[in-house]
């Protein structure tokens, strides 16, 4: 009886469409494109893999120096490292505050007015499209060497990330409270403040913590172009070929980044 049932069913089920040929063609096209990008003759990039072997002695010498960090240098790194952390925290905090209204203006459920929404989104996309080191370089030229250009760089960088990711998350979130607020005669601002913000604040908090993590990593580099923090010291020691000191700084950055990540993971788990 069961066999007759399954026989009847197999007769009814339409054949599954096969698309193997298409999948294979798409795969081949991607593979060919990737290979083509590495052929200089047709405008691809030049990859001299042989350099890895030819210059190996340089690399190994550097690695040996790296493996002998001079921990006597550590006290001199504390100040710049603190400056890096301060830039990271203050930049993330300022961006967090400013991100709230901008995000709500950039998401469709919280801003039904299309022209202002598109305007905010366009501005944010422009801000986002400039790389962080470009901001830092230009700002150092504008406001001078120090922590300030680094801070502004981090602020702009964070703002772009938070507004883009959170506003897209809000677009994809079902928020029935909005209809209730509208039915109660609320303005969009009232609905956003009392209805949407409480519902979406974990989305915000997640990105705020993420940008804090990013900031510690980025601000370690910003000093290389003169924008304050531990990066300046790193660049200076590297210029003196003091790789034992550089190794200390790199290790320290690693430890701090891991600590911040542990801390933000701890906070994130308590969110929900």
């Amino acid at each position, binding site marked *: 009886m069961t066999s007759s049932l399954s026989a009847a069913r197999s007769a009814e089920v339409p054949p599954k469409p096969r698309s193997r040929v298409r999948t294979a063609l798409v795969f081949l096209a991607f593979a060919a494109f990737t290979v083509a990008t590495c052929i200089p003759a047709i405008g691809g990039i030049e990859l001299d893999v042989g350099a890895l072997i030819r210059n190996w002695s340089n690399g190994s010498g550097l690695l040996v120096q790296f493996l002998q960090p001079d921990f006597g240098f550590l006290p001199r790194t504390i100040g710049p490292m603190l400056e890096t952390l301060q830039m990271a925290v203050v930049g993330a905090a300022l961006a967090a505050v400013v991100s709230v209204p901008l995000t709500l203006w950039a998401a469709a459920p919280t801003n039904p007015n299309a022209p202002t929404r598109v305007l905010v989104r366009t501005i944010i996309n422009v801000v986002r499209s400039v790389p962080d080191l470009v901001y830092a370089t230009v700002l150092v030229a504008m406001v001078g060497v120090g922590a300030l250009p680094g801070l502004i760089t981090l602020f702009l960088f964070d703002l772009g990330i938070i507004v883009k990711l959170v506003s897209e998350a809000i677009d994809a979130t079902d928020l029935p*409270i909005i209809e209730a607020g509208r039915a109660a005669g*609320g303005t969009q*601002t009232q609905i956003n403040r009392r209805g949407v913000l409480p*519902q979406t604040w974990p989305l915000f908090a997640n990105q705020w913590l993420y940008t804090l993590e990013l900031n510690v990593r980025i601000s370690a580099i910003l000093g290389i172009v003169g924008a304050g923090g531990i990066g300046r010291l790193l660049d200076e020691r590297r210029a003196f070929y003091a790789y034992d000191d550089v190794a200390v700084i790199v290790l320290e950055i690693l430890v701090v980044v891991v600590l911040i990540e542990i801390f933000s993971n701890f906070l994130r788990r308590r969110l929900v």
Partner: protein
Amino acid sequence: MRIDPLHAEVGTSPASASWSIRLDDVSVTYPNGTRALSGVSLDIAAGEMVSIVGLSGSGKSTLIRTINGLVPASSGTVTVGPHTVTGMRGRALRELRGRIGMIFQGFNLADRSDVYRNVLVGSFARTPTWRTLLGVTTAQDRELALRSLDSVGMLEKVWNRAGQLSGGQKQRVAIARALMQQPSVMLADEPVASLDPPTAHAVMHDLRRVNRDEQLTVLVNIHLMDLARQYTTRMIGLRAGEVVYDGQAAAATDHDFEQIYGRPIQPRDVLGA
């Protein structure tokens, strides 16, 4: 702290005088071309308790949303109390909505906020935006929020997160939020479709009490025939966007329901005890 029953405050306040509702040849066509209502004319007197019965897709939700302007009528006129909803915009529309309470099938609460803040949503229309932004509440609104919660038996949950409540409790908080508006009309869109039978009866009971105690005009969308018969006095049957029945709810026969549904009655058309 003892709190007087809600009607002591709301029932006597002139702001909550009940309103009549009139639809005059109202049609609604959505932008995607779907015609949800065609040529609906209704006259609902102040203080009536009316059920709107029909299958899903019959236009019930659209009809109820034309009354507070959440869905604009494509043609025809909607009048609520002394106001013409059709063509109303901006502040005038928001103030009108402030006088029309509404509850929903999915409760539509802010689950991550506490019950108290959810009820305060009902004060939006009479509160300046800057006050809401700063979170400043008047003593009067605080008092009214607690009274509203008390009148639906939810006062003890005032500091709980809305998301922690059961379905029936959430719907009661939603009713308190609507009462917070000191409404002249109460709309309910399938208020018990997500609830189990005993809770459904309790919520319908609450709605009838609101209708009787405050003399509020109440419109309930419902697809269950026994609830419509038991709790409402007048029944309007919708089928494919047109009114096919309008009469006493208790007198509606099974044949009338078959006309509304366009098919024989099935067990799922009845809630049961």
